[in-house]
């Protein structure tokens, strides 16, 4: 037998076993190809965050040596980390892709959205996202959402039907059986597709390590000016911090997730390599969102409500 990508190991189910990462990779590639075969105009949500980076990597593998048959879409809150935006643009250029940007700032400037008193912009992404989907007529939208992230997502389908208002109705979701995904939808409706549904945070990191995927630097430990708000270390910046009663300090931190600066907290860490990050996550006693996201803490049903409105 020649070299093969599947890692066969002693004592499991040799000779025809797949490692869990190979099984997850194979499943995600299958999902990408299903969408390519059944939809007219798919788009991949791409922010330059680690989950969307892994999605893009899988899409590139799924269609090689041909280019990815999808465009990319980023909903820019206007408060994104510059390192992440730079990564986004490099990736787009490197793979010769087309990027659409829906800008929250433009909506605020045009008076179509109002800034929240706390400056948190994640909830403001919903309208620009849904309007971009309508305007550009995407019928399938890939998101990096994982079912392990949050309780409401534990019941999310791989193919998640949305009406013309992008709303998610848990009672309208179709049962998903075997590997048969049903992507049929009426004109104006679209399907959100989650190729990483069955991945955990640790799987994502292990896969990044195995594949040697480059990430924005802010995922690794570095010194940064931060201040404390709502129990999180936030990056000081023009987006709205620190306020008068808040003081900045320089700490050695890294980001476990990357989103809007106003609600993405850093964690104290000295992990400067992928292996160190993986060891840290495996030993962590906090979930990814619990450690770093203010937006999910709003209420017990916060995520469910936002999903219904058309957020991911």
């Amino acid at each position, binding site marked *: 037998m020649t070299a093969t990508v599947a890692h066969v190991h002693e004592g499991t189910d040799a000779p025809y076993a797949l490692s869990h990462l190979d099984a997850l990779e194979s499943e995600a590639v299958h999902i990408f190809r299903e969408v390519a075969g059944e939809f007219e105009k798919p788009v991949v949500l791409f922010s330059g965050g680690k989950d969307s980076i892994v999605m893009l990597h899988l899409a590139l593998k*799924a269609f090689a040596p041909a280019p990815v048959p999808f465009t990319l879409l980023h909903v820019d809150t206007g408060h994104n980390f510059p390192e992440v935006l730079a990564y986004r643009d490099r990736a787009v250029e490197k793979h010769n892709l087309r990027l659409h940007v829906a800008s929250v700032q433009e909506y605020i400037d045009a008076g179509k959205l109002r800034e929240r008193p706390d400056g948190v912009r994640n909830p403001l992404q919903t309208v620009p996202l849904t309007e971009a989907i309508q305007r550009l007529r995407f019928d399938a939208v890939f998101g990096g959402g994982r079912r392990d992230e949050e309780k409401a997502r534990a*019941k999310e389908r791989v193919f998640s039907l949305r009406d013309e208002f992008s709303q998610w109705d848990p009672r309208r979701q179709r049962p998903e*059986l075997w590997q048969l995904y049903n992507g049929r939808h009426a004109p104006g409706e679209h399907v959100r597709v989650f190729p990483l549904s069955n991945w955990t945070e640790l799987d994502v990191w292990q896969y990044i390590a195995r594949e040697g995927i480059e990430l924005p630097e802010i995922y690794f430990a570095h010194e940064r000016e931060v201040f404390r708000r709502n129990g999180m270390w936030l990056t000081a910046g023009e987006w709205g911090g620190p306020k008068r009663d808040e003081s900045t300090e320089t700490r050695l931190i890294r980001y476990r997730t990357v989103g809007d600066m106003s609600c993405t907290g850093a964690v104290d860490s000295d992990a400067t390599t992928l292996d160190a990050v993986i060891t840290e996550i495996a030993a962590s006693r906090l979930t990814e969102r619990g450690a770093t996201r203010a937006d999910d803490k709003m209420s*017990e049903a916060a995520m469910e409500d936002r999903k219904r409105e058309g957020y991911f």
Partner: protein
Amino acid sequence: MTSTTEQVAGFVDPSATTLLRFATAGSVDDGKSTLVGRLLHDSKSILTDQLEAVEAVSAQRGQDTPDLALLTDGLRAEREQGITIDVAYRYFATTRRRFILADTPGHVQYTRNMVTGASTADLAVVLVDARNGVIEQTRRHAAVAALLRVPHVVLAVNKMDLVGYEEKAFARIAEEFTAYASDLGVPEITAIPISALAGDNVVEPSANMDWYGGPTVLEHLETVPVSHDLTACPARFPVQYVIRPQSAEHPDYRGYAGQIASGVLRVGEAVTVLPSGRTSVIEGIDALGESVDIAWAPQSVTLRLRDDIDISRGDLIAPSASAPATTQDVEATVCHVADQPLAVGARVLLKHTTRTVKAIVKEIPSRLTLDDLSQHPNPGQLVANDIGRVVVRTAEPLALDAYAASRRTGSFLLIDPADGTTLAAGMAGESFASQAHTTVQADEEGWDF
């Protein structure tokens, strides 16, 4: 309980872990939430912030102890009604294996959810209360596992602490269940006496039941073989997508992308393309960026063939030596999963692997009652959660296997062409639902002759 360092040490080598998908069936009263909660908790998958959130909500409601069901019941409607209404997927890992758990509700009106969870499961855990033994619901769960051909079934006899950890109580239930499930064709049954509340035999071996010499639930989950059944069958390769870069670098590349549904494929193998019947030879296999000589289910690969023949999405590539027959007449057992009924004469779409064709429901010969396996001839229609037999005529030929031979190429969906609703989950060929197991009872409408 392993220490954190041991846990971490195991996580650092991801290539040594395999993936097991399993489903749980049982009602909240049987202690299912407690069992799932304990598996998650003892494998360190419930983290501090999740526990804190549960404790806070429990305290707000005036409960003294954290309600573990809150960890697993995600949607507001469920929390308000205190029930589980959908399949929820949960994730945990040990140093040996990664687990995907499809947590399904056990009530009769949610048969479709258990069918959904069981459809991708390598193993099903059926939970019974040691005080009640095998009840109607248990038989229903065994029947669903048998129908969906889940390779391994675990009978978890829970609440052993409430029957004095008596071996006799366990043995009686295990024997009755094993006889029943074997009769339905379940290939492998493992019975384990547990107390999810006290922690006996879930993760840690029980000190209270030294008469039991078998594995704990978690040990069994860690060691049961996975995916062996997929590679033992003839190879099947449904074409998902044709890759043709037509670039300067790859002017003539033509690859057929798909996931191997069953069996093993090798370079040099003679293959037949269905439904056209054209033949060729596998010239190359591209396994996501690497050229290989051999690949197997469930790998996603790209096949290159020696001859330039017309192949598109929906075709099936199979070894010429063991190619399936094609048919336009499908007889199958279905589970009806939609709120709108399925009636004789309905025009539907049938999705089989990567192929979707028009179809008509010609007959519904019988409906099955899962509790006692009695059959009701010619019910006229099937409604939500019904299991029944259907005869379907398709507009185009399908390369369909019997579900008994291959879960992936013997399964299909029936879809409402009007709004895209998934109506039914189909399993082609014979099953215990097609044999008269018990006396045939007539429906209330009277005789059907």
